């Protein structure tokens, strides 16, 4: 069974067309992509841009763990890309992409993409600094890993 897995931390812009092509095997007719983007307005709150930093060596290992967990749960997924961009990103730009390819849309493609982004946001050591018109702040997440979040 040919499957494709792409795990990437990158400073380059995320190219959704290239990722779709890269993960789609000849057996696949359905691709689901989640991409996070820099939100400029959250109610009255304004964000100018975001800067992402990673603990790169660990982030790559944890991306691999997310991929392994996802494949254990969604065995009909053939192609998978988990891409986290780091560095500075403007409002509207993709910061992360989870791309899942399967034969049919009912093969868990939507659920796998959701799992991928949920898990990435829990355990992959990346942080964003929010830059606003009046200053900047590191954003802290709210998930505290437990021993269950170790790779198997």
């Amino acid at each position, binding site marked *: 069974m040919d499957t494709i897995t792409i795990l990437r931390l990158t400073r380059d812009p995320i190219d959704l067309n290239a990722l779709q092509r890269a993960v789609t095997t000849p057996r696949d007719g359905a691709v689901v992509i989640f991409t996070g983007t820099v939100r400029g307005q959250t109610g009255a709150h304004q964000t100018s841009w975001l800067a992402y930093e990673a*603990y790169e060596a660990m982030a790559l290992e944890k991306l691999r763990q997310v991929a392994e967990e996802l494949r254990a749960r969604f065995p009909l997924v053939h192609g998978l890309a988990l891409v986290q961009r780091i560095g500075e990103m403007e409002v509207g730009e993709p910061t992360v992409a989870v791309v899942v390819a399967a034969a049919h849309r009912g093969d868990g493609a939507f659920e796998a993409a959701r799992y991928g982004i949920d898990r990435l946001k829990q355990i992959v050591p990346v942080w964003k600094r929010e830059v606003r018109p009046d200053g900047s702040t590191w954003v*802290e997440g709210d998930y505290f890993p437990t021993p269950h979040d170790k790779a198997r």
Partner: protein
Amino acid sequence: MTLTVQVFATLKERAGAPTLSLELAGPITVRELRARLGEQHPELAELFARALVAVNREFAFDHEAVQPTDEVALFPPVSGG
């Protein structure tokens, strides 16, 4: 031996440096690691107490051991994606 501890995000900003050093005679626990770093940097003790700890690129918890030769990092809950 000197243990080098990488820090990220808020912790790096508050520490004013990407790494902290700690002299170790031998293995300690993660709990002791937090305490020793807090004694050395009292103004950051509260941050260290809440921080996530990674040993050799894996999350590590209170009673787990840290060797002076390990790759160790402290950081806040992640906020990527």
